[in-house]
């Protein structure tokens, strides 16, 4: 039986941010609330 030579395709690793970075962004979003008072925006961070 003929040998099968499978060519392994080189896969470049996906460039991804760290989980900590993404988690921080999501937590920041959950904590942030922007309130418009007149012409001004106030950022409220609920810790």
């Amino acid at each position, binding site marked *: 039986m003929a040998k099968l030579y499978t060519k392994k395709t080189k896969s470049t690793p*996906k*460039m*991804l*941010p*760290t989980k900590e*970075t*993404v988690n*921080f*962004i*999501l937590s*920041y*979003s*959950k904590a*942030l*609330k*922007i309130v*418009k008072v007149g012409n001004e*925006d106030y*950022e409220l961070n609920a810790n």
Partner: protein
Amino acid sequence: MAINQLPDDLLVKNYIDGDEIALEVLINRHQSKIYGFIYSKVLDRDIANDVFQDTFIKVIKTLKGRAYNEEGKFLPWVMRIAHNLIIDTFRKGKKMPMNRETEEFSIFSYMTDNSPNIESQIITEQVENDLLKLIEELPDDQKQVLKMRIYDDLSFKEIADLTDVSINTALGRMRYALMNMRRMIEKNQIVLTN
């Protein structure tokens, strides 16, 4: 329709309306492209993470502030923000260049710390304690003048007034105090240098 399959414009709308999961989906969908783009410019994972984070902080603030005009171009908009932040990063880097230590160059050749180390501090304390003990061995009148002069920083006129003696007497007592201290140091072979 599952949230993962919603188009970007609907996810953005849902997010603005308060759906935090929509943001998570958007990040998961585009993080590779955005992060890859940032990394290709800054070539440093830590800096790329910082820029990525700052990019989405701006995205979040704009969306929550309802200042985003949805024209079906979410990803190009985010990439533009990332691009501008990369430029800011490079500008900051030029203003404050980072010097890494190499074999030829060490920042410690230029920066010195002149504050006394703990050994010097201990020796200084010991010397001061020894001096105090020597001063206590002096006769009372000499001890009084010496303490008023060195520790209270009084002039000889003030010392003379306070001790009800003439200035010459105060000066004489100080002179004898110092002579007696030198004698004690020599006699007992005390080392008072740091």
